């Protein structure tokens, strides 16, 4: 059980109709084989992303009842197990960004070099590094920026991807957007403030 730090396992963009717009999957470090591989199958990631919609709905209901949560950051949605946790963000047009974090997705060596993990935590050894509240904010910000860039494309019709009165919608096919997602998912590590 190597000491590990969190990394992004999957980024999901979900449309207003709860329809998947884009899913990017990232490999995690597997200490057994000493290689990088996604921790779940695409289908399982789909299921994980879809299950976050429950939480979005719960939060939306709760926020509506209590009148809080004006900012779209939903923070931690839930932790699926001790390794994977889902963080969520909802834009004011109902598009949702979900980040699935693998709490042990990276080896610690690189992180020590980056000075992100202090001595105390290193001493804890097997205990993996946690996350602070708000450490996902740069990710959401970057995702939103990428999404806004996508929306600025005059050939991108948001209604096609989430029909105002209907179900489903097309997926995002923009390669630029996919590249952005890939970049965000690969470059994020805990403590990164700008993506």
């Amino acid at each position, binding site marked *: *059980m190597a000491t590990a730090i969190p990394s992004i396992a999957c980024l999901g963009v979900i449309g207003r109709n709860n329809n998947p717009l884009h899913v990017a999957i990232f490999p995690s470090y597997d200490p057994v084989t000493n290689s990088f591989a996604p921790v779940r199958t695409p289908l399982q990631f789909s299921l994980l992303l879809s299950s976050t919609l429950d939480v979005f709905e719960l939060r939306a209901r709760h926020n509506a009842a209590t009148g809080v949560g004006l900012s779209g950051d939903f923070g931690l949605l839930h932790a699926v197990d001790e390794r994977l946790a889902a963080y969520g963000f909802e834009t004011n047009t109902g598009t949702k960004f979900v980040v699935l*974090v693998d709490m042990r997705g990276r080896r610690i060596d690189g992180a020590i070099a980056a000075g992100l993990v202090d001595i105390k935590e290193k001493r804890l050894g097997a205990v993996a590094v946690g996350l602070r509240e708000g450490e996902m904010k740069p990710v959401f910000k970057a995702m939103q920026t990428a999404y806004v860039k996508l929306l600025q494309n005059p050939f991108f019709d948001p209604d096609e991807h989430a029909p105002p009165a209907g179900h489903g*919608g097309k997926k995002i096919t923009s390669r630029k957007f996919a590249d952005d997602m890939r970049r965000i998912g690969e470059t994020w590590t805990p403590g990164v403030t700008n993506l």
Partner: protein
Amino acid sequence: MDDYQAGSLDPNIPLLLTLGVSAGSIHEAKLGAALKDQAILIRSELPALDSDQAHALLGYIEDHDASQLPANGRDTSRRYRFRVKTAERSFLLPPRRARLPDGVESPHLSATLHSPFSPLSPVSPLYPDGLMDAQWILKHQDLVPSVLLCFYDLVSDPTLATLCDNRLKTDLNNLRGLLSQSGYKTRLAVVLFSDQDSHSVDSVQERLEAIRRACAIDAKSLFLAPSGESPDELERMAENMLTTLYGVAIEYFRDLGRHSRKKKARGVVPQPTVSPTSGTSQTLSLAGWNVRYDFKSAMFAEYRLELGNALLSFEQAYENLLGPELLEAIPSWSPRWNEARFLADVIAVRCLRCLLWNGQHSAAARRWQSHRDRIAEFVDRRGRGISNYGWKAWEARWAIVMANLIERTAIPDFTPATMNLYLQPEKNVMGERLQPWELLHHTGYWYHLAAKHLSARRNLAHAMSEDDRRPPSSSPASHVANKAFTYDTYMCPDPHDEYPLNGAGGVDHSRMIVDCLKRARSEFLKRHQFRFAAELSLECAKELALVRDWKRVVELLRSLWRDMSFRSEGWLAIAEDLSWALRSAAAAVGDADLVIAIDWELLGQNFTRRTNWHYDITRSLEGIAPKFKPSVHIEHGELLPFVSPSFVFRDEEGKAGQSTRGQLAIKSNAQQGSAPVVLKSIEIEFSGSVGRVVLQHQAGAATEPRKHGSVALSAVSLTDAAKDGAISEVENLDESNRKLTLHGNANLTLLPGQTTVFGVDIPLREAGETRAVALKLGFESEAFDLQQSLYFGSGINSSNLWYISTSSTKRVARAIPLSVRVLPRPPKLKIKAPAWKDQYYNDEPIQLEFGIVNDEADGALAKLDVDLFGEDTPVFSIEVVGQGAGDALPSSTVVNDESKLRGVSLGTIESSKALTVRLNVPPIERSNRYDLTMRVTYHLSTAPGTPILQTALLQLNVVNPFEANYDLLPRVHPDPWPSMFDYDGVNGLSGGDDDGNDGSSGSGNAAHAASTTLTNMSHKGISQAWCLVTRYASFASEDLRVVDVDIRVQTARTVRCFHTKQLGVLPPADEDRGRGRLIRPRTIVEAAFDIDARKSTLDGRSPSTLDVSFVIKWTRCHPDTSSSEVVVNTTTLPVPRFTLFGTEPRVLASVSHIPPNPPSLNKDNSSTRTPQLAVLHLIIENASAHFLTFGVSMEPSDEFAFSGPKQTTLNLLPVSRRSVTYRLLPLPRPPPPTPTPTTPSTNKALPPTPATPGGGAGGTWIKPGLVVRDKYFQKVLRVIPTEGMKLDKDGGVLIWIPPDEEEGETRSGEKVEAAE
């Protein structure tokens, strides 16, 4: 949690044992056989109580057993917590000191005996080097009560009281002795049931005191329950008692805790009773003893609910246990290794419970993880590794333990109503870098985690080699030994039991997994995490599919599959996974409907293609043999159909009775390479009047589709089913309900990826909006039927392409190409108004004739509605020419300026026939403008359901044909005025012949004259003559013939008035057109009337008014109808009111001409012919009651010579008139250039006569300088001209002198003659 030994993980609650009441469940100490025969029997000699009171109290105590209470520190309402056990008469206590084993001879006599639960005693399984086991925990939880509560009766009968008390004392002392003998410090408490009520209890106080002293019982431990108390009081008493006893129990455990701390502080390793001789003969080290002591004091602290202290001690024990001297030192093959692991687990669980109790949820989650990580590290390093089923089993168990702990804690923030998925971290760790999992999640997540570990365990178990799975009996010994080092069997079976080679028995992994998943699922469902729950259902189903429990798979997934959000929200990968899982189960169960529906859906290429799958819907039921031929109906939206239909009308508008073109395009999105789907029928449903279009499959249809690329286009001709045969039954239906069903044949084969387009001609029947609504695809094979309903208009139908040919399309640029607006059928029935005139006139009955011509091909049954709209609309009636004229004609009703007539039946108008309708409008008095709307509603005999409307809008102008203006000119009344002084002469006056006067007013015919005379006789007032000149003009647009004109006079009663028509008003009757005068439009015609007015009495001096109306009787020149009679219309024009008989004096001038050469006047000038003379009469009327004097002067002029007074004075009596006469001889002069006949229209005073031809040719006007002056007022009176005279600009009077050579003509004479 149940995997651990009984009691080992239970929360520690003080045990309260009751003695002396018979109860249902009797406490039976669970002692091992070895301990049982050494057990100490505690026995009460007195009989057990059986009173209601005792039972009630016992029941209350038992009800308040705290062993199942939530282990939650927030519940502070409970002042005591007891685990309650009941013994009737006796119970066993485990021996305090273990006996020496039989076979062992004590090496030295001083050997100390220890507790049988201690590793020091050879009896204990821990002997010689074990740490701690569940037995010890159980001892305090179950075996040794902290409080022994004895129930006794307190007899009040004085004769028996002493005896009973003594017996009681004896028994209690006996019990005390036994307890102290046993070595346990169990506290003794007594409750006495008095048979007296609470008022007399004071008397027994002494007895109680005696008993207490005799038995050396603590004052706090003796309770009295008086009899006859209400349940409330009993309850209160019990509460107090239990609270007090709880304090006693706490004290008990405090003593125990102190004891174990003392032992730890001693710091020596106690020697076992007998030194171990077997094995390594190793004894428990000091560290081990410290773990024991720490554990014990932690346990006792837990009993006391001092969980903070307990946590500290537990943690200390835990650290020591996992320290280098203990767990590190124990060899992993030793059973002590597992025992130590067990103890570590127990301590960790108890730590977790302490943390949860204190509300440190994140710390608990962290503690849970750290224990898992530490043990994993140990097992990996020193044990058998973590990649075997044993470790996974432990991991699963560890997750379940956490779930159970959370359940037992019953955290209020975790009730499903709060909808919390996880708890916020407590304050002290808030800012730290927390793992997301350290925020405590609800139990669903933990069960889910356990299920994952269980399935990993199963995978690892299944990965074991066959050699390992052999039972030890049938495998070589070396292998058995090897196996023992490979597999971790801590709390789980050996490999051959885990997954036996022969497949029989073994661990039912699936059941465990499904169990966990179900528990997790229920938790997720409680918190509305439906998608997560669906995911778990899917996992569960897959698990069940592994064990081929197909029925439960179908049960689980069927409803999920029906309404899963994954499909509607576009998570197709999930939907697909679920569909395949359900399909295989449904196929195995034989649920054909489900299989067909799933196959139908999975045909779509949205789903990933599964290799080696046939993708042929007809082969769907292969291997399934349903009892009946299945018929599946799939509603719209239930599935994701692989076809996307669209319908386009080519035109936006169409007309009823015509047909419009539409195209149905069905795109098949089936998997490439799948078998073509041959539909049986396609049914298109329309809203509006178009009913349905049914296309039937016909392989060799008449028109084979043209194909090009991925488009197949075919035109389908439709036939009306009703026409073909089913007319009779259709006709029975209500007309409006009858909907058209059109049939057509086409090739309905859908190839994957191909768009199949059907062009249809759709006849439009009724006006309105028609829209393609739905589509039904019917599929039929030998094995099953399938029907798929689809709606147009939702998102799938976004393509509005019109296929011109297979290769070219055009976009139909309409908002809703699905619908066509049907305009009403253009009516061919015509409404004609051939004799319509621009104008109709007032006072004329109007007949309007309309021709209704049927240009339709069929006869039309028609109804007529007529609306007349305008101000003061008249009531009209309608007559259908040639139809039952005898009946009363239907007439209209007038509502709010609208005259309506509805539903006049016109009967059937045959084709190309006409019908005449006449509208009779009564004469209208005022000119107006009306809107006439004729609306014919009809339907053809061939299409009775289709009403057709024809409307004609006409404007009816009703104008006044004539207008007139009026002048009332004064004349000299020929009759003399009656004299005030001649009473009798009044009659005589009127009798005189008045022919000589030129006043001209005489009555026309004799009868009239007679009446005049009569009235004159009755009316004796002054009289006046007037002439009313009217000029009427025709405002009609055509020639009109005036038949007669007349006036109607109305005066006050004091005035009698006659009028006569002057000659020349109307020409004599025309020879061709009958009488009357033809008046062209815009011409003015004059008519004059003489009016003779006389007052009834002489006294009446007030002026009176004259109301006159002018009546014109006229006809049209060209009568519309050929009917012989000419309708004479009468138009009455009102004339403004005139005033007669003013009181002011007035001067009238009249002139008469003496023709030349009158022999009587020709005396002085005989040589030549005498010149023409004009006689000017100046008449001054004094209608007032005053005597007036006037001066009259005549100035000489060079125009004429005159005879008569040049200057004179006239005196007029009241109501009298006098006249002065001048004879004028005009001097011959060249005619002055004066505008001779200043046009009659401008010259107001001019009588009509000078306008006659020749009148003004040679004559002249002369102006006598005549002045009449009122002497008294010195006011010049205006001279009013009468006939043959006029006023000039200055107000002077001009006299017309006819030309010389003209023969004398006297108008007055003519007039008299002309009067009829």
